[in-house]
């Protein structure tokens, strides 16, 4: 491990948890060793900057929770053929969207041929994946310091000039805030607005162990390298959101993501919502025989341009989830590739700033231009009309039920006379108290958000 530290000395007293950093100044201090922070560290260390990444977990990844899919394209740009070495779980070959009724389910499956490079997406477990990513930054010359909590941003004359951590002050030309969804430091420094419970979701997750071969067979994969991703809507105990099931090598990542205000309005505790979701026969079949090995939770921003805070200021830039950057198109939530794209754009801006020797807001302003050129940003623009959909309660409860009820009508033979599709739909609308006008509006909203 080589550090680009020049004459800076680092003294670690590992006997006590509070290691002391005796370093006067780095070019760049990065808060958080998730994908955003580490990508910025990797690119800036490569460009010759002295970089330190401060991470509050015992190891990178030990505080991190994701649903668990990374979309590969942006990672491939920065870490070519990362899948050959990185501890990814399975390459995603199939995506399914499932509407859950009371006990029934209607699924729509997308399958491609056997997956091959360049891959589209992988399932990952953060406690394994993040240390690998951090090691890439270290190899490039960045210093990664786990086990430290940054207590505050250091602000002098209205300018961020470093961080306070473990009683020490660490100065830098620029601080990259990559602290994740909570944005604690920005909050303490008064650099962001309060979050509203309708704009943030809680993700509740279990990792469920099953034999590797069982997962391969049950999710119709050809090999243990191949995996599937399920997005499920409905049966979330009244909470507005959806579920996911992703295949890892010998575990499944299962969870529910639901808007925080809808959780407390539902009067159900998060683990009760998760239990209700797991009790659905469709879900129960997929996890049958499995053993839960970890329970976790994480907040997830809703995404949307109007919620993004100021991305940079005098002496600092904000990247990844700390900047509430997320791509939400209802069926997929993309955080970990948006994080990397924003960090790469921020790294370019820091390089620009260095050339001008101006780390003020004006000097760092090219961050926004670089970010706007990324494919991730363009995708965010494409799906900008999706957000009204997320406010639509019928999408999470009534419609999944209706789809399943109509399918049931079509397939069931009983003493009642059968119904054609339209008649079944009309009956369902009546039962769920949905007018033609509301239905037309919702279809328009869905069309505008995700289809047209």
């Amino acid at each position, binding site marked *: 491990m080589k550090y680009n530290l020049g004459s800076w000395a680092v003294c670690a007293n590992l006997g006590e948890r509070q290691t002391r950093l005796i370093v006067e100044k780095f070019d760049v201090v990065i808060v958080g060793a998730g994908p955003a922070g580490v990508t910025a560290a990797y690119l800036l260390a490569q460009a010759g900057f002295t970089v330190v990444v401060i991470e509050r977990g015992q190891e990178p990844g030990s*505080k991190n929770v994701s649903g668990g899919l990374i979309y590969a394209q942006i990672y491939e740009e920065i870490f070519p053929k990362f899948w050959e070495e990185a501890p990814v779980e399975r390459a995603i070959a199939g995506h399914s969207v499932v509407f859950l009724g009371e006990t029934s389910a209607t699924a729509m499956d997308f399958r491609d041929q056997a997956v091959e490079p360049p891959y589209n997406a992988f399932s990952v477990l953060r406690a394994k994946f993040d240390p690998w990513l951090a090691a890439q930054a270290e190899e490039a010359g960045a210093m990664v310091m786990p086990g430290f909590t940054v207590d505050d941003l250091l602000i002098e004359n209205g300018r961020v000039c470093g961080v306070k951590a*473990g009683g020490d002050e660490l100065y830098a030309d620029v601080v990259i805030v990559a602290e994740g969804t909570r944005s604690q430091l920005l909050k303490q420094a008064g650099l962001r607005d309060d979050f509203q419970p309708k704009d943030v979701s809680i993700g509740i997750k279990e990792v469920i162990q099953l034999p590797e071969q069982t997962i391969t067979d049950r999710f119709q994969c050809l090999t243990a390298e191949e995996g599937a991703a399920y997005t499920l809507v409905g049966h979330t105990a009244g909470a507005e959101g959806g579920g996911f099931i992703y295949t890892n090598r010998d575990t499944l990542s299962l969870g529910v993501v639901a808007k925080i205000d809808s959780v407390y309005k539902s009067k159900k505790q998060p683990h009760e919502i998760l*239990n209700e979701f797991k*009790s659905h026969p469709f879900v129960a079949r997929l996890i049958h025989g499995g053993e839960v090995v970890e329970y976790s*939770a994480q907040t997830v921003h809703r995404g949307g341009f109007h919620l993004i805070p100021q991305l940079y200021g005098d002496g600092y830039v904000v990247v990844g989830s700390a900047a509430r950057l997320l791509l939400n198109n209802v069926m997929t939530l993309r955080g970990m590739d948006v994080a990397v794209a924003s960090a790469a754009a921020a790294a370019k801006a820091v390089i620009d700033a260095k050339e001008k020797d101006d780390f003020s807001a004006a000097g760092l302003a090219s961050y926004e231009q670089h970010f706007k050129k990324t494919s991730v940003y363009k995708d965010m623009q494409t799906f900008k009309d999706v957000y009204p959909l997320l406010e639509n309660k019928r999408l999470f409860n009534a419609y999944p039920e209706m789809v399943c009820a109509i399918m049931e009508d079509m397939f069931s033979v009983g003493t009642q006379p059968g119904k054609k599709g339209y008649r079944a739909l009309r009956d369902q609308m009546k039962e769920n108290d949905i007018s033609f006008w509301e239905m037309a509006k919702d279809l328009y909203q869905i069309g505008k958000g995700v289809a047209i």
Partner: protein
Amino acid sequence: MTLNQMSLDDLLGLDRYDIDDQSHISIDHSRCELCALKPCLTVCPAAVYVWADEKVAVRYENCLECGTCTVACEGGGEGGIDWRPPRGGFGINFRYG
């Protein structure tokens, strides 16, 4: 035990923590008194916040550090929760994530 009957204590028992002897969460009870909704009692996935002796009690050792309580309290409550990250290395320690 079937999969879908796990209690919260069972679930939390699966997780690894390195528990600090000091709490990283403090409560301003005067604000909680103004809070009719008390969303923290519902939304926390680890039930860190419980109603005991007519006030909000905190079981910080169970905290999953997800951030849900602060969002609910900032925007849905009265801001009585002061949540800070645990000291470096302490708190939840995910093995899968």
